[in-house]
């Protein structure tokens, strides 16, 4: 999976959690929780669905690395290998 593909996966998962969010308009460098109006439960759900979809389990200690769309897609891409 390329970074762009993993970014699409994350976008699709966010769209499932926050149907009203404009996922194509997400600024990749800004905190996703703010960009998509995700609360902590939504963010936790996103982490769960990423694990279900890609097999990448993100430990809580790594959450600071995956706060933005860019950070999250790079993390997924790096850990899929």
């Amino acid at each position: 999976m390329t970074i762009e593909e993993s970014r699409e996966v994350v976008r699709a998962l966010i769209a499932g959690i926050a149907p009203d969010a404009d996922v194509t308009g997400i600024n990749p460098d800004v905190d996703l929780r703010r960009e998509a109006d995700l609360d902590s439960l939504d963010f936790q759900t996103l982490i769960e669905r990423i694990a279900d979809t890609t097999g990448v389990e993100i430990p809580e200690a790594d959450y600071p690395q995956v706060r933005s769309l860019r950070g999250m897609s790079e993390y997924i891409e790096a850990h899929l290998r």
Partner: protein
Amino acid sequence: MLSASLPPWSEWWAVMAEFRMPSLGADMTEGTLLEWLVQPGDVVHRGDIVAVVDTSKSAIDVEVFQDGRIAELLVDPGATVPVGTVLAVLDGKNVDVPEAPSDVAASGAAESPQVARHRGSVKASPLARRRAAELGIDLASVHGHGGVISVADVEAVETHAPTREPATTSEPAPAPLDHAAGDPAVADHAAAMRRAIANLMARSKREIPHYYLQTTVDMSRALEWLAHENAERAVSDRLLPAALLLKAVARAAREVPEMNGFLADGVFTPEKHVHLGVAVSLRGGGLIAPALHDADTLSVNELMSQLKDLVSRSRSGRLRSSEMSDPTLTVTNLGEQGAELVHGVIYPPQVALVGFGRIVERPWAVNGMLTVHPVVAVTLAADHRVSDGHRGGIFLAAIDRGLQSPQNLQEGEA
């Protein structure tokens, strides 16, 4: 003997029960029957969902209050009727009622006769809970093999439940309040919800002499404990700070019962159970505060999974009538993106509301040394007709104490 002199019809009447349009919150005056999930002749058990009712807030699964056989349905789907209208008649006698499954009944404490509900102690895998939430299936209605409900058990129920909605995909259905623009019915709904919130909050501010207290709680122990716990957990079993905050409130409510109960006709009645109303903001606007039942007796793990389930169902419009009608104390938690402090408005006829701001890092003095700690501002809005600042302060102190020993909050208790 009196009973011997009664005519036969009274014996008949004694076993017939009326199922009425419930009051799903103090702001509800009428409801629209959307759908019957039962037919005349069906045997129902207390806590079964028998109908779906639309309120100004959302569609609610309405539970029946007693065992019986449906004798007659009196109101047709689509009809809007006032609260208290008889919707159906139940025959409470001519029923061969099997015992309720023990895993539902076992959890415990005496049920209030007016309030029937499924208990939270059903054993199910986290994945099964999630799947059940997605499909809108109550776990209490699922038969688990080997005592624990699996995803397969949940899906078996789904395929054998013709009255339910068709199976959804793994993504939750959009909440009915989403995409308000463009759909007049949905826009009406949003306006109706805003009106309902306005009416209830105006009544609260008009009638309840609120007093407000505030304290700042050091969250370093709680967050360290959570980080330690979560490090060893699978993604789906991780805990959020909200679970500890809610648990600490539920415990404190047992200590200070003046915060937990209802004021009606000038008389305060403390409630034995702590059913925490959890304020959930809906996408597309609006707010709903359904009950997390028996929050004081749940373990933090159970509380976390029920919170997830409750929030997900709040947003997809599949709440139960008991969840809507009986919170005894409400908590609003602004979460990670919120403001630092909230002074809440009490939901009548409740008498208190606890608010948590965002957890933030702040300078914190310990033993004369200045360090940086994560802290949270906790507020209490309480009804001066029932309690005063002294008791309110004890209540907030109890919440603080709970959060300083997270390991003691972890376990459920009777």
